[in-house]
């Protein structure tokens, strides 16, 4: 179920209470570490750190693992690709596709890397409300001179939160229209191109119409993309600076060893 992937889990843990900016910075920093890591020992350490954070957050590990499940196939594909395409000592001598020890190592490393990135991201979304993530990104972008590009950080944040809000309805609409067209005898197997048009056209039409209504509702409530405040105004606490300090120390140590 895509509904359970990357969802927020209510809680009041240390991790939940951190400022979203702290958590965004942490995820970025940890992602870099994960990407640079070439050894299994280092990977083990990063996995342990992830498990530690998960423990602190109180989010069930199985919930986070479920977020990765939709991409499992992709990870498996990466693994197989590396396993068979890397040159080296064969594990079993097969004629065309030869699995090698080097491939096994590289494949495992890449899959772990990819999986771990997703897990850290899942931990972020599980411990942070979507609106808080958007808020955090907005505050991080605010100093940038985006005005020259014709948008404000507030616009970007609003766009993000609207996407989060309306993506499920969009998918739902797509499913409804698909079902309706199938009921009318649309044959997706024989004429895929016509089938896609038959679904896309009403879907776009419907989405544009709702988008207009959304715009009217927003304008009626004085939205103008200018400076706005937030119900949950962000404030960095001592806790946040402490967390960043710990993270910095961990990263430096990690890179030094």
């Amino acid at each position, binding site marked *: 179920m895509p509904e359970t992937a990357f969802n927020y889990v209510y809680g009041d843990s240390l991790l939940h209470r951190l400022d979203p900016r702290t958590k965004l910075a942490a995820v970025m920093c940890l992602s870099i570490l994960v990407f640079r890591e070439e050894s299994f020992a280092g990977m083990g350490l990063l996995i342990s750190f992830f498990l530690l954070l998960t423990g602190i957050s109180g989010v069930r590990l199985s919930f986070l693992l479920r977020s990765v499940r939709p991409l499992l196939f992709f990870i498996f594909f990466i693994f197989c690709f590396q396993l068979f395409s890397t040159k080296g000592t064969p594990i079993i001598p097969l004629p065309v596709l030869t699995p090698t020890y080097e491939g096994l190592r590289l494949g495992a490393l890449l899959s772990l890397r990819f999986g771990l990135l997703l897990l850290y991201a899942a931990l972020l979304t599980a411990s942070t409300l979507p609106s808080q993530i958007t808020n955090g990104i907005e505050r991080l972008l605010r100093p940038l001179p985006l005005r020259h590009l014709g948008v404000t950080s507030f616009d970007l944040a609003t766009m993000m939160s609207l996407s*989060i*809000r309306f993506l499920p309805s969009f998918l739902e609409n797509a499913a409804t229209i698909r079902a309706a067209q199938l009921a009318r005898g649309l044959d997706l197997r024989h004429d895929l191109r016509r089938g896609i048009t038959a679904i896309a056209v009403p879907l776009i039409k419907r989405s544009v119409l*709702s988008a207009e209504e959304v715009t009217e*509702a*927003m304008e009626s*409530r*004085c*939205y103008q993309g200018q*400076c*706005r405040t937030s119900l949950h105004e962000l404030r960095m606490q001592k806790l946040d600076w402490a967390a960043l300090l710990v993270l910095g120390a961990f990263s430096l140590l990690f890179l030094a060893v």
Partner: protein
Amino acid sequence: MIRIEDLSYDFPDGAQGLKQINLKIERGEFLGIVGRNGSGKSTLVRHLNGLLKPTEGKVSINGMDTADPSNLLKIRQTVGMVFQNPYTQFVGTTLEEDVAFGPENLALPPEEIRERVDRALEVVGLENFKNHSPKTLSGGQSQCAAIASALAMKSECIVFDEISSMLDSRSREQVREIIRKLRKKVRTIVYVTHRLEEVLYADRVIIMDRGEIVREGSPKTVFKASDPGKFGLELPPVVELLNSLEARGFALDWARLASIENLAEEIWESGWKI
């Protein structure tokens, strides 16, 4: 507070939306606007907060011309609007964020936003649903959320455009109850609907047809003298009853009798001398 003079509106495709509308709305008034589908009700009320600009004529809100873009922000703070579709006007990811959206746009301090959100949610009775996502709210609850969102703007006037037409009968009753409650607070209300029974207690009612105002007056005169049937409107049973009672010489106070309970009581007390 609202003044519409010789307003005509043509859609971008050339179709004529409104013809020569003249209308004044007083502070504190409850104005009902009725008319069949496509009669131009929504087109008219979209002029009240500058979503549409007159092709001809003038609309002014507390003296501010809606055609002047520099007035728009102030105008939208003065006239709030609630629409028909509960889903497309829910822009937050949770209920409280949605209600906060307007006050956030006004760049109010967080404490004040908090207070406005809490107050508004209390009025519509959703204070226990603050953290609910739109997925977990019913259509009726979402529509109450939309009302709360408009209340949180603390505007002088609120326009309701067919807010109950997409709801089932139970949530419709719930929404009507809230509107009745709002009416007691001093606010100007413009209430658009095609159900006459929802505007029986209005101070004034107008009937629209083909982009024009065809009838105007108190609910009593409009629904008795004229013939709403001619404009594709259905007289609710209550009104037919009221009309036939009056025809038999009963003096009735429509504003009070619009509620079925009051009417029953009145008939009961009159001792069946009908």
